[in-house]
């Protein structure tokens, strides 16, 4: 039964990913300018050489053929060659991936903890100044551009106080500021949703009943409220992962950290479209995977959801 559910659940993400990959392929296929031209025209090559290069790269094959080749390569993890560097895109991405993951995870931990704390706090002190303060903080958090908070944070902690390094990578200290910056924005979004959800659950019958029975507030909070409250928030966290990925790109730029951000930006500036395509697809894959995991976790937490047909 569990297996059947998983199998059913897998279908949609797989389909979506396929569709996404196809869209990406089409988008990049119809873009004017191709590697053969870009690379060789600059060095003054003639049309014959350009045509030959194109054939080498397999760019003269008809659309369906290129498409099939693309899909096959994709499934094998081959994302093509970088036009700029001539190296395997997959390898380039692989190299830049760990710092980005590091940053994303750190930011997520901070964001989730802070967000939950603020959200729950606001919910149980609903209507008081604590609520207003934390909610305002949350909204500000998610309205502030991460690149700005990053710069401010650098300004205070690094340049004025000199506590932490502002750029670069390599140690735990280098991770703190960027993670904090990104995490703060994430926390804002999470806090709002946690608060809404906890407030909603708090108003439910069984909670009121439990309190009427005289159970002390604290156990009531943790046992009855949090468990159902958490489930949908998991989904939201997964959804916010997209924000996290994008935010990581920005934060990396601000703090001059190595990672996918730098890779992507450079690729775009130099029109190294293969790399861009690779990063985008990777982003989609990760995002879909995370959401899938969240869905599965949610079903595990709340057995009622397992009957849901997708």
């Amino acid at each position, binding site marked *: 039964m569990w297996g059947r559910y998983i199998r059913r659940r897998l279908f949609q993400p797989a389909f979506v990913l396929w569709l996404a990959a196809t869209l990406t392929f089409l988008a990049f296929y119809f873009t004017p300018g191709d590697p053969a031209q870009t690379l060789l025209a600059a060095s003054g090559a003639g049309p014959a050489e350009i045509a030959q290069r194109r054939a080498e790269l397999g760019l003269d094959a008809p659309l369906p053929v290129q498409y099939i080749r693309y899909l096959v390569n994709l499934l094998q993890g081959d994302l093509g060659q970088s036009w700029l560097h001539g190296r395997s895109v997959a390898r380039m991405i692989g190299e830049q991936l760990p710092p980005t993951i590091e940053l994303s995870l750190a930011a997520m931990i901070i964001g989730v903890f802070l967000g939950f704390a603020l959200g729950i706090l606001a919910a149980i002190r609903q209507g008081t100044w604590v609520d207003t303060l934390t909610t305002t903080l949350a*909204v500000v958090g998610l309205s502030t*551009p991460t690149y700005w908070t990053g710069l401010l944070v650098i300004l205070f902690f690094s340049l004025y106080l000199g506590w932490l390094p502002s750029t670069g990578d390599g140690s735990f200290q280098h991770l703190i500021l960027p993670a904090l910056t990104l995490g703060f924005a994430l926390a804002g979004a999470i806090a709002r949703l946690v608060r809404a959800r906890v407030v909603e659950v708090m108003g439910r019958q069984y909670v009121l009943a439990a309190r009427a029975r005289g159970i002390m507030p604290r156990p009531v909070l943790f046992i009855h409220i949090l468990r159902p409250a958490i489930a949908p928030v998991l989904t939201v966290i997964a959804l916010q992962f997209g924000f996290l*990925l994008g935010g990581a790109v920005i934060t990396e730029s601000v703090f001059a950290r190595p990672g996918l951000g730098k890779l992507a930006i450079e690729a775009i500036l130099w029109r190294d479209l293969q790399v861009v395509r690779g990063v985008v697809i990777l982003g989609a894959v990760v995002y879909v995977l995370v959401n899938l995991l969240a869905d599965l976790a949610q079903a595990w937490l709340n057995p009622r959801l397992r009957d849901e047909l997708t």
Partner: protein
Amino acid sequence: MWLALVCLAAILAPILAPHGPGVTNTAASLQPPGPNYWLGTDLLGRDLLIRLLWGSRWTLGMALGGLAVTIGVGLPLGIMAGAFGGWVDTVLMRLVDALLAFPGLLLAMAVVSLLGSGIGAVAIAVGFAAAPGYARVVRTAAVEVRTELYVEAAHSVGCTPWRILVRHIFPNTITPLIAFAATQLGWVLLNGAALNFLGLGVAPGTPEWGAMLVEGRNFLRDAPWVSAFPGLALTLTVLAANLLGDSLQRAFEPR
């Protein structure tokens, strides 16, 4: 509530348009601090306040342009999916799902890479990236309306599906759509400026707020105001947009 902030940001735009002195460019003095020039100057001696005011045209223009794209793409998609249902719904929503699989900023970046540089590209890219989310919301609203009695009544009288859509469904979905549009404006603004910050949009030297942030980066210690003020402006505007969206949503909630 805090629509005052929005109005402030919005009024900024038209008032400054013909604001006296030419765009920017006084290569004269370097980077002196505060009160002679209200917000200080940047590296090339340009008055920051003036740049900020002019920049509001760029930044807001980009955001509104992006929003136009979002609504232009998202609204028809969502409303057709919601109103017609059936296979139209499935096909369109699958498409939207596929687009939503890409993290927002990455999608915008990808589109920019396809379109080239310049503020138009950024606006389109960010607007396009926000469109699927918007389409989803529109669809939900449309579906809700579709099940209402008056739609069935119109159908039984013999209205063609298109007519139903335009005359009945659409007007009744407007209210939540506007609310969400305000929130999306905040997102578009934020990420559009982000793209400019990353150097992927406007040409360097353009007084767009995101781009101005980058300019101040190298002398953060000595002249923090160059980056601080554009960022503040951005934050306030995004905040205003978000709050506007919030209050609109709350206003339209109890029907």
